């Protein structure tokens, strides 16, 4: 929470509702820069903006604008305070009103998790900035069919073996783009003149992104986190990622996913992280989100995915035990 409060103090808050959604994220960057008069972008010895450090993107702001806030892209200061209080209370309250099954499913509260206590500093009601309704665009008919078929297979075989569990449970990857989850929303960035490394605490994902202008891998090579290539556009690090595996599956995405990410320092303790998702096989239009990152306190812990988390074995052994009992 401290890191978020600090982030809020650094990035001032603005009313941007008159600005087209497509421009708002960069307007935030520009305005934040303008308001940090005494601050200048720190640089590495080779002259590029210094993004290094440990950062967190924990926030109560959802990726998509909630239905009850349709048509309301920004909250006022007072509305934001009420939203934070209400959302945090919902996440933390002791609810036993759904019976044992529901209770197991939602048995953990914010003691065990870390969604933060604040909305993003701009008080926008969604991380999605384009389309302007703050919602991820509809899936194409082709993608709807693909997603439905995959879901049917998963439902039919859920506990048959590890391959039907999701990539988190299997400890394969948290995946891209870098969105906040329930906990471990910490990222460490390390730069050299030729590469940027981004370590994500969740699943211990490490991305090594070359900056030397080399071309993407051949189209036949597919990777869980795709193949990222970085370059500088002014003071912004732009990472262009292709070659995803179809199994990477970000909200139903296909192997054609083309992800463009932009990292810009906006203050002593903040980075603006924007990403654009372009996958015509999946989404009816490209879409874009902006996720502020604030400097995190402390170190990233090594992630011992299966050692510290018995979910996969418990799920499969549990299913076998129940079958045997029947």
């Amino acid at each position, binding site marked *: *929470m*401290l890191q978020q*409060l600090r982030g809020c103090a650094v990035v001032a808050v603005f009313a941007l509702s008159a600005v087209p959604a497509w421009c708002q994220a960069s307007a935030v960057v520009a305005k934040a820069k303008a308001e940090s008069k005494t601050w200048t972008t720190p640089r590495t010895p080779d002259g590029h903006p210094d993004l290094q450090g440990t950062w967190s993107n924990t926030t109560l702001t*959802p990726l998509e604008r909630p239905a009850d806030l349709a048509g309301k892209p920004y909250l006022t200061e007072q509305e934001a305070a009420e939203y*934070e*209080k209400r*959302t*945090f*209370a*919902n*996440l*933390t*309250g*002791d*609810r*036993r009103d759904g*019976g*044992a*099954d529901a*209770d*197991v*499913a*939602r*048995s*953990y*509260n914010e*003691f*065990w*998790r*870390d969604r933060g*206590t*604040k909305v993003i500093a701009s008080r926008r009601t969604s991380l999605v900035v384009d389309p302007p309704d703050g919602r991820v665009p509809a899936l194409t008919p082709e993608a709807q069919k693909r997603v439905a078929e995959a879901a049917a297979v998963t439902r039919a075989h859920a*506990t048959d073996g590890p391959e039907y569990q999701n990539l*988190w*449970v299997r400890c394969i990857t948290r995946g891209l783009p870098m969105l906040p*989850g*329930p*906990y*471990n929303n910490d990222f460490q960035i390390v730069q050299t003149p030729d590469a940027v490394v981004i370590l994500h*605490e*969740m699943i211990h994902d490490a991305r090594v992104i070359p900056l030397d202008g080399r071309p993407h891998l051949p189209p036949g090579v597919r990777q869980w986190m795709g193949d990222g290539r970085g370059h500088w556009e002014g003071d912004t690090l732009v990472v262009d990622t292709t070659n995803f595996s179809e199994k990477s599956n970000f909200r139903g995405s296909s192997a054609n996913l083309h992800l463009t990410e932009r990292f810009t320092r906006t203050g002593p303790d903040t980075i603006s992280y924007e990403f654009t998702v372009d996958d015509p096989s999946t989404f009816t239009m490209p879409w874009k989100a902006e996720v502020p990152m604030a400097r995190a*306190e*402390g170190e*990233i*812990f090594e992630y*011992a*995915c299966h*050692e*510290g*988390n*018995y*979910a996969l074995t*418990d*799920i499969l*052994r*549990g*299913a*076998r*035990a*129940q079958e045997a009992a029947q």
Partner: protein
Amino acid sequence: MRTKLALAVAGAGLLLAAVPVWGHHAFAAEFDAKKPVKLQGKVTKMEWINPHAWIHLDVKNADGTMTNWMVEGGTPNTLLRRGFTKDSLLPGTEIVVDGYQAKDGSFRANGRDVTFPDGRKLFIGNQSPGEGAPESSK
């Protein structure tokens, strides 16, 4: 830091509609809604493993034998930010755990509620943004 350690609501409470798809755990597939457990015993150790700390405790069974249970907790980073340290739950501390047993019948449970025998809930710090620890916990 220690003064902030005390109660609050442990366990429960997730308004599913407000939260993006929760991917790491399918809790309902891992723990058994038909096997609620209430464990009381002394902590034997606490493992600080990412992504889940594990609290081990010895629980006396009805026949007098002892079973060592493991109770799942939060991530080290989250716990540290809440003010939880390695001294917060020392071996020998008596606790009560309300949770659900793993479906495979092993002596593992989720830590839905972790309380001290006098009813104080084991939880730390800030319940509401900016308000600090609840008054009764100080």
